[in-house]
């Protein structure tokens, strides 16, 4: 008869806010003093934000109403006047429901992604459909009036640049990573060369290249429009970074997996697609989401080549003489939008990481 083994059960002590403050903020003189100073600063900042942003602010009105404030309060009326332009750019106003619907579908899909039943391939199908519908709503055709891409703008354009470059970049990144770890010298050299070249230069220079050099690359008459050129530039740029993330996963996979797959007599592509990639890609979900976040932030650079993304439309809005004084309100407005998207994605990656870690502990 074996005696039962008792494992000590470690339960983290849950403290409520009051206990936490007692033990982490007001334990001893020095700490209490620091806490009070910080509390005072935080309270003061909160008061300024509340006073300026809410109590004295003008929410609805004309620029004359804001003038009367003399900068004591925020002028949110500006958002009422320019908000649609900032988010949807110059999209024809009688067709404005299309980018609005597209954005709604996009945000809904983001929240659907939280639903774990849909992981993994169902999620891919969902996003495939969402992205196709989104671009159809913007472009038109098939029953909708076509809208030229130079009329797109604001957040709807930011989403196009970020996510439509990320998908080809993801597949190109996988190919580059496989090439970089392969033992065929010529392929390896090409992949290493491309990755290091792209990672060595700033994104802005790649964008300049897309705007001044790419037109020279194609024969007369083959015009590639500015948006497509930008998406190609982003694709190539992000592919190099994603390749490095994927490569980390390929290297982290135990060698036994490669050897076992080979011992089964599987060919290279079967091995890679059925055994190597499914395992190594799962490991690198968090860095890949980080790539997505940085791409989303980097889209703000397209303003240097004259595309009207969220940051550019905001800059256009404050070029209006009547509202030029309220630049801070506009930047806070778009800052909140960027922040929400990025925060959502980073929290999402933390969630995936937690769940994957929990799944890996099998004993």
């Amino acid at each position: 008869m074996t005696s039962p083994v008792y494992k000590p059960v470690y339960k983290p002590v849950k403290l409520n806010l009051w206990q936490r403050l007692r033990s982490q903020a007001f334990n001893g003189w020095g700490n209490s003093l620091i806490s009070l100073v910080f509390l005072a600063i935080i309270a003061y900042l909160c008061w300024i934000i509340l006073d300026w942003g809410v109590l004295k602010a003008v929410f609805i009105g004309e620029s004359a109403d804001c003038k009367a404030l003399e900068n004591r309060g925020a002028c949110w009326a500006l958002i009422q006047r320019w908000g649609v332009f900032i988010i949807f750019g110059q999209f024809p106003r009688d067709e404005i429901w299309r980018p609005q619907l597209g954005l709604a579908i996009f945000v809904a899909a983001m929240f659907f992604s939280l639903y774990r039943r849909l992981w993994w391939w169902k999620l891919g199908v969902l996003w495939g459909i969402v992205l196709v519908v989104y671009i159809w709503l913007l472009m038109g055709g098939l029953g909708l009036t076509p809208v030229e891409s130079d009329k797109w703008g604001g957040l709807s354009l930011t989403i196009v640049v970020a996510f439509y470059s990320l998908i080809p970049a993801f597949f190109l990144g996988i190919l580059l990573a496989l090439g970089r770890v392969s033992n065929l010298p010529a392929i390896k050299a090409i992949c290493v060369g491309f990755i290091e070249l792209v990672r060595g230069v700033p994104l802005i220079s790649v964008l300049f290249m897309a705007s001044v050099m790419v037109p020279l690359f194609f024969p007369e008459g083959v015009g590639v429009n500015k948006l497509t050129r930008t998406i190609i530039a982003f694709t190539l740029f992000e592919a190099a970074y994603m390749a490095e993330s994927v490569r980390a996963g390929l290297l982290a996979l135990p060698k036994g997996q490669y050897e076992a797959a080979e011992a089964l007599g599987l060919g290279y592509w079967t091995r890679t697609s059925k055994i190597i990639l499914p395992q190594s890609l799962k490991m690198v979900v968090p860095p890949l989401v980080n790539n997505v976040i940085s791409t989303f932030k980097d889209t703000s650079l397209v303003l240097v080549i004259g595309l009207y993304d969220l940051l550019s439309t905001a800059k256009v809005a404050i070029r209006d003489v009547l509202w030029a004084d309220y630049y801070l309100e506009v930047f806070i407005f778009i800052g909140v939008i960027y922040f929400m998207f990025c925060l959502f994605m980073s929290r999402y990656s933390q969630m995936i990481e937690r769940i994957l870690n929990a799944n890996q502990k099998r004993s």
Partner: protein
Amino acid sequence: MGLDPSKFNVNDRKFRAVMAQVITLLVVVGFAAYLVHNTLVNLEAKHIQTGFSYLSDASGISIGESLIPYESSYSWGYVVLVGSLNTLQVAITSIILCTIFGVILGLGRLSTNFFVARSSTAIVEGLRNLPLALQLIVWYAVLGNALPDWSAAWQPIHGLLLSKGGISFPSPVASTALVGLWIGLATAILVSIVWWRIAKGIHRQTSRELPVFWPSLAALILLPLIGKAFGGWQMDWSFPTVTEGSLEGGFGLSSELLALTIGLSIYTATYVAEVVRAGIQSVSFGQTEAARALGLSKGKIVRLVVLPQAMRVIIPPTLNQYLNVTKNSSLAYLVGYPDLVSLVYTGINQTGQAIEGIAVMMAIFLTISLVVSLLLNWLNARSQLVSR
């Protein structure tokens, strides 16, 4: 022996490997050749001059600020040099500042104090999730709008002038006393380093500990003063003053440079903070406990046990961030600071020589990345744990 039939077998491994590479090479080279051909045809059609000879032509542009003397009659090559120096200046200043802010924020997140930890987390999370371009534009707008015109510059203390144009403060005028001060400072730094190494050597051999910090501090204060006394003690300062039509004297930092440096260093500091935090958390608590059991003091535990192990984790990603700072300094274009990228872009617009301009710019950035990655490899090799 005749031909070995297995060499041409499609199912042979070696044959397939060779064929795969040959086909890939052919596709890549073919595509490149196609692009080069198109480019040459297009350049011919547009009558654009090719080659790097334009780098010696006079540029004819004016540059807002430059570390070296510059006039518009100077060549394009010289413009590239001005831009590279401006880029390096921004990069180096931002690297120093982002390290300081990053360490403070990273340690703040690890603080046992509830409010300190929470505020650091809020700052890091908040700034990381906003695009750098937006942050730079906001800094520039705030600096440009909140401050008065330079003609009515705000002077909080005598000699410090704040205006839309930037900050000006007094600068010492060249004199023998100044030279003495600098020589004294240089000697003090040298003496401190030499003394530190000697003390380390003695500690290794005899385990006797000699004071390092206080003697060095004394040297750093006393030697410059002695040098200044030798130089005649008298030092003149040039104060910035608003005269008719211009701001004269003193040392000035433009608001473009300020916005860029502040924005870049604070943004990168949030990344450095995460690196520092992860590095310190990577040292297991057992190390601290063991050091405590050996009777080491608190300061020594941090200096001799925790930091050396944390540094191994911290340094590689931090160097990577430094490289990012250098690349991100190209966002200078957004605030109108004449860095390498914006000057090259001006050059491309003026001369039409897009390919050459972009080649020059990429070559410079690649050189910088290459130097940093060599440094990184060297450091990694040096700090690697010797595993048995």
